[in-house]
Structure formats: structure tokens, C-alpha cells
């Protein structure tokens, strides 16, 4: 019974989707206010979702219809499964086993992978370019992002999210001891969510909506929901690892919101990077910096 509740109501299911929409609204509102716009009303993400779910889904010619319908479901399911292993809003994770960090990161990648495959599945030329860019970008930020999350795992000497957060709670904030890892994790999250300046895969002035150009109704809604969920999980992971572990729910939510406002500020401030610049940035700076820190951590652990 509690397993079903965990899947459908809390922390998975309805609760997660709603939190995802609220976080999406906060992000959009903040960016809008930074840009001196009014921004959406509080229920706008919900209204968008309901509208999209109610709309007819047009299946374009030349696609594999089964893939066209299943990919959005897989993408959302992957993101929501990941939620079971992270301490959402400061509560203990529903499930946990040694090595769940790797599973979580893998599940989070399903959304990007699903988006890329969805674009490659259609014949639309914007979608194909978008899919190529989505997957190119995946290969550029994924390794640094994973390394940034493994930094805390190394010092905690565990691959289990629960034990890492316990370690983070008992010691000084890892933000202080591993600043590079924190930065890379936060910016990697922006890359994962294709937020500006890493929005080349869906750059509207070049390739319309990128990989998802052909999606109109339910599929688009599911991808959007998946993105909201991933935003929540990503912020939760970064806050739990780098900002002092799992604490009182209110304080924990405040921490994730603080991270979200940093993300919104960065989004508003920066110009979109070309895809080659994105790859260059990650492999020239992101990956090397986080690798250097990783090596330093391993050496430090060995000396201790």
C-alpha cells in the first residue's frame, strides 16, 4: 500500500508533477522579472499542461508511430523513477540501495535521450538538427556532471545517496570544500535542462523547437512535465550534496529555491552558446576543472 502511495502520490506521482510545475513557474517568473516583463500567472504551467493534454496529437508522416507515442512516456517515467531515490523537499528517499546514485543519474539522462530519439524519429529537418544537437550536448555535459556528483561520493566513501547526504549533513558544507564540483553540477544541470545559454538544441530562431518540433499534444506535455520533474530532482541533488545535506523541509526548500534563483539569473544574463562553443566550454574547462578537483580529492583521501 505504501509503495503504491509512494509511486502515485508522494513523493512520486501527483506531488512531484505539481512541484515541477511550481518550480517551472518560479523560474519563468524570475526570468521575466529580470527582463522587466510581467511573466506568467501562477497557474500558467498547469493551464499549459491541461491544454496540451486535451489537444489532438498529430502524428506526422514517416515516423514510427509506436516510438512516437512511447518516447515521451519513457522520458517522463525515467525522470519520475529517479525521484524515488532522492530526498525530495528534505524528506528521506522512498527507496535506497547501495549504488542508487548511478541509477538516478542514468534515469535523469533518459529524458534527454528520449528527446534526442524523438527528434531523430521524425523526418522534419529542424527536428533532425535539434536531435543531433541534443545528443551532442548530452555527450558534452554528462561526464562533467557525473564527476561533479561523484566528488561528494568519494569523500563520503559511498555510492548511496542517503549516506552521501548524511555525510554532507555532518560536515562543513561541501560547497566550501568542493567549489568547482558545485559550479559544474549547477551549470551541468542547466545543460541537462537545455536552459539558456545551453539552449542551442531548441534555439527557436534557428531550428524552431528543435527535436520536439513535430510534437503537439500529449507528447509535448509529457516532455514538458519531465523537464519540470528533472529540474526539481537536479536542484534537490545539488542542494543535498553541496548545501549541507538533508535538513528541515522548509530550510531545504529554501535552499533549492535559492539555487533556482541563481539559475534564473544566469539564464537571463547570458547569450546562447553555439553548439560547438558549448562542447568546447565543457571539455576545455568544465571537464578538466572537475577532473583536477577529482584527482585532488582522491589524493587527499589516500593521504588521510
Amino acid at each position, binding site marked *: 500500500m505504501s509503495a503504491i502511495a509512494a509511486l502515485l502520490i508522494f513523493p512520486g506521482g501527483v506531488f512531484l508533477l505539481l512541484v515541477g510545475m511550481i518550480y517551472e513557474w518560479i523560474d519563468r517568473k524570475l526570468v521575466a522579472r*529580470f*527582463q*522587466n*516583463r510581467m511573466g506568467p500567472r501562477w497557474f500558467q504551467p498547469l493551464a499549459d499542461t491541461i491544454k496540451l493534454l486535451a489537444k489532438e496529437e498529430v502524428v506526422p508522416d514517416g515516423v514510427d508511430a509506436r516510438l512516437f507515442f512511447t518516447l515521451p512516456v519513457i522520458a517522463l517515467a525515467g525522470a519520475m523513477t529517479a525521484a524515488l531515490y532522492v530526498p525530495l523537499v528534505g524528506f528521506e528517499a522512498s527507496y535506497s540501495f547501495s549504488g542508487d546514485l548511478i541509477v538516478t543519474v542514468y534515469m535523469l539522462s533518459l529524458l534527454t535521450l528520449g528527446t534526442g530519439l524523438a527528434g531523430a524519429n521524425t523526418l522534419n*529537418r*529542424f527536428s*533532425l*538538427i535539434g536531435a*543531433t544537437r541534443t545528443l551532442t550536448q548530452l555527450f558534452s555535459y554528462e561526464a562533467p556532471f557525473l564527476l561533479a556528483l561523484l566528488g561528494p561520493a568519494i569523500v563520503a566513501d559511498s555510492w548511496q545517496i542517503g549516506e552521501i547526504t548524511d555525510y554532507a549533513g555532518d560536515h562543513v558544507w561541501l560547497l566550501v570544500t568542493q567549489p568547482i564540483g558545485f559550479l559544474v553540477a549547477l551549470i551541468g544541470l542547466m545543460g541537462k535542462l537545455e536552459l*539558456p*545559454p545551453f*539552449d*542551442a538544441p531548441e*534555439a*527557436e*530562431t*534557428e*531550428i*524552431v523547437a528543435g527535436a520536439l518540433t513535430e510534437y503537439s499534444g500529449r507528447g509535448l506535455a509529457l516532455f514538458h512535465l519531465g523537464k519540470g520533474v528533472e529540474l526539481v530532482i537536479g536542484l534537490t541533488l545539488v542542494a543535498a550534496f553541496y548545501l549541507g545535506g538533508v535538513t528541515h523541509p522548509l530550510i531545504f526548500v529554501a535552499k533549492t529555491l535559492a539555487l533556482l534563483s541563481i539559475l534564473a539569473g544566469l539564464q*537571463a*544574463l*547570458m*547569450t*546562447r*552558446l*553555439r*553548439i*560547438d*562553443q558549448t562542447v568546447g566550454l565543457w571539455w576545455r574547462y568544465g571537464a578538466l576543472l572537475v577532473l583536477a578537483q577529482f584527482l585532488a580529492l582522491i589524493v587527499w583521501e589516500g593521504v588521510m
Partner: protein
Amino acid sequence: MPTTPTQENDVFRIPIGPQHPALKEPGHFEFTVDGEVVTAATLRLGYVHRGIEKGTEGRNWIQSLYLLERVCGICSHVHATAYCLGVEKLAGVEAPPRAQAIRVLVAELERIHSHMLWLGVAAHEAGFDMLFMYSWRDRETVMNLLEGITGNRVNYSANQLGGVKCDIDGEQADDIRVGLDFLEGRIKHYLDVVSQDTMFLRRTRGIGVMTREDCERMGIVGPTARASGVELDLRVHAPYAAYPEHPVNLVTATAGDLEARFIVRVNELFESIRLIREILDDLPEGDLSVRVPRRIPAGETISRVEAPRGELFYYIKSNRSDMADRVKVRTPTLPNMASVLEIAVGHQLADIPMILTGIDPCFSCNDRMVAINDPSRGEQAWTWEQLRQYGIEYYR
């Protein structure tokens, strides 16, 4: 994506337009890409041909003024100015000095409005929506000033044959000065942004480079040419209206890339502000207009003015009736459009929207139709109705 150029079927073409988020007006570009790099580009225009030149032949001189003012939705005033200057030349009259000064004043305010609009659009194409939102917010100031002078925000209708319709009193002059002070501060900030923001410079510096020779060969005009070091500004080299009394300092840059186009246009804003202040301080007294005869003496003339996008060319022919015999308009976008196709090749697909916007294109202004008549076979020029019918059939 397999792209072996030898096999025609394997070439990957990206269509941009006629409907595309990067284009605010319809035009059709086709870019052949190899991965992300553009290897060839083609262009098709003509989706918004409106038959305005033909339309003037069925309207009297005064009605045509209102029609021609609607050639461009952004630089409406320069079209009216070019037309009025041409017709006044044919009629042998000259607008009074105060009218000429007000013409220039409105033209410079319009230049500020046009360049700020461009600044926002170009930033948006690069994915820098912050600059887009802020420059469009500040542009409201100059729109309000124009509304205060003429009563309209876009098609100001400030000109009439033989002068202008609106006067500027002391209170309006003070409003303009206050607005300009605000704008000057903001534009200084924008100059810093476009010349110093590292992330933005990654998308503009060294992109879309056009040398001075390229510009001269392709006949590029306006700020796009001046960004490549071409010293060409009709306000300086062929001054009209009140520009002889209020000389303009030429603004150029040498780099010829997108960054230079940003810097030239932003610096032109300072020059416009300086000029407007100068005119306000030194506005000649006198009448606002002189009488222009209903029938214009037979003859032909050309009239050239500097629009925000470059040289605007009018050819006007009269056969001593109350209607124009022929009005030919060449807008600056037409020569500039050729440069897009040439410099696009070799650039990344992501740079294409910026390169296109870099020339500040205005599609509906430049769409023309050419029909060749053979008089020996008894072919006649088309009537308005035939042209309309042709247009309906063409897009069916």
C-alpha cells in the same frame, strides 16, 4: 546525416521561411548544410509584394504620399520625405527652413526608434533576450516622443507636399530633451554591452566579416557598409532638407563583422541625439509649408535620402497631370540582401539568423515585380486590376 555533395539526393537542406520564428516577415531561404556548416544558400523573395508603385499611378500626388508612407512600417517618415523632396523639386518649390528642420528632427527620432528596434531583434536572434526586452522598453520613450509631435507612433504622417503638418512648441521641445537625456544614458549602457559582454561577443566578434572591397563590389549601403569602413552616408555626402545647416559626423568602423555593425548603429544613435538637440536649440522661425500646385509640371527627377537602413532611392516622373506617371522606389534592403547569401557560406547554421539580421532586412519594403512588355506585339502595361488578379493567381 550523410552529406556527400556529389549525390544530389543526399544534400541536407534547411528551409528558413516563409514562416519561421527567425523571420518577422516572409522570405524563403534555403541553406545547404554539412553538419552544422552552411555550404550554399539560396533566397526567394516576393511573398509580400503589394503593388504600391503601381498603386501610385492611380492616385493623385497627395494621396500617393499616404500610400508611400506605408511602404515601410518602421521607417515611414523617410519614404514620405524622399517623395516630398522629389515632388517639390519637380514643382519648383522649396519647403520653408522650419519645415526642413522639423523633417530632419522627425527623421532622426525615427532613426533612434529603428536602430533600437534592430538592437533588440538582433539580440533576440543571438538568444540574448535580456537586451531585447530592455532595448524595446526604452524604445517606448522615443515612440512616445514621436506620438507627442505627430499624434502617431508609427506612420507619423508628419510630411505634406511643400512642408510639414506639425509644429514643435517650447513644451514639446522640453519633453524631447528630457526623453533624449534618458535615452542617452541607456544607449551608453548598450554600447558597453555590445562591445564588452564576453558571452555576446562570442556570437558577434569575427562573425559575418565583410571587407570594404566586398561591400563596394556588392553595392552594400547604410550602416552595414559603414561597419566595413565604407564612407557612405547621404546625410554627409549629398545633404538634403536641413542637413546642410546641421552637418552629420560620419560614423564608421573597420572590422566589418557583426560586432562592428552593432557598434556603428549604436554610435549613430549618439549622433542622432546630438543632431536633434542641435536642431531644437536652433529651430528657424517661419512658415511650416508652401503651396504646391495640384498639377505637377512635366519632368522626371530622382530623390535620395538616408534611411535608417541605408540609401533610399526614389525616381519620380510627372506628365503634367494630377497623378504621378511613374514612381520607382529602391529600398536599402535590396542591395544588402545579396550580401547575406555570400557571407552565409562557411558559417555555422547558428550564425545565420544573426548574419541575416545584421543587415537589418525589411522584406516587404523591397519586394518588387518585374514584367517585361514587348510593345511590338501590342502588349500594354498592366492595369491595376490585372496586377491584382495576377497576384491572386500567383499565390493560389
